[in-house]
């Protein structure tokens, strides 16, 4: 059983948790974009295992929060859309990762 002191420690990091990232599907999207420079929609669909509709709706939320950026580029003569984390998104993910780690580290054995 955690002591009262430990209990306070446990909850210390919780307010720092970014709820937008904390949702499993969005967390997976953010994590995949964090480890690469950029990726297209199909690649994210394959890696995260999300359906088209699901991925689209989560992407719009992340885009609205300015966590991801849509970049149009040409491959040959064809236009192609690549997705990448913005500076704000990258920082938010780093902070989320750190907070989660801290929170779990603070938990008693």
């Amino acid at each position, binding site marked *: 059983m955690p002591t009262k002191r430990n209990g306070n420690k446990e909850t210390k990091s919780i307010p720092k948790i970014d709820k937008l990232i*904390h949702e*499993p599907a969005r*967390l997976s999207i953010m*994590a*995949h974009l*964090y*480890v*690469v*420079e*950029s*990726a*297209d*929609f*199909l*690649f*994210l*669909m*394959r*890696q995260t295992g999300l359906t*088209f509709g699901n991925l*689209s709706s989560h992407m719009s939320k992340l885009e609205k929060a300015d966590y991801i950026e849509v970049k149009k580029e040409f*491959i040959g003569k064809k*236009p*192609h*859309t*690549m997705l990448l984390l913005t500076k704000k998104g990258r920082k938010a993910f780093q902070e989320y*990762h750190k907070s*989660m*780690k801290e*929170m*779990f580290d603070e938990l008693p054995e």
Partner: protein
Amino acid sequence: MNSNIDLKKLERKAWTSYFDDGLFDLMFAIILITSVIRTVTDNAWFTLMMFSGVIIYILGKRFITVPRLGRVKFSSERVERQSKLTIILGIVFLITIGILVLSLQFDLPSLLSSIIMSIFIIVVFGIFSYLLEFNRMIIYGIMFAVSEGISGFYGETAGTYANLVFGIIAFCIACSYLIRFISNYPLPGKEVANAH
């Protein structure tokens, strides 16, 4: 659990998914099998046919892998690793020429030059396997080295048979990976294409 995201593992998984198509295995198999046909028929055209493996690899990546798996640009760390690989490839090319020149100039016994070549092949494939994080590559390195060794010990005919056996094994591995890849990653629907 959310706290347990292993980012390195995630990046590695994304990277290695590009090798799940079996195209490298297919390229290796084609090179081995055409080299056997070239030796048996003594037809120089089959030397050129060996390059068809590389062409199939490039076309396969473009028309099979990317439309099913999507596009990604990996991190600068990964790109750096690939640059190292290109440098190593250049060094390997020079060393191979060096070994060939030495064995011709000093008339090294075929057994000795085969042993040197086998060790060299394993080291090179080992480095490639490590830098590309593509574990099957070391198996192909061992296959190449063994067939080179058999050539040195038992003569060229035995080496040719070894190449044929390893080529068929690689071809079977390639087919199983390719079939699995195509069934795991069907072509996406129109809505995904429109998202591009």
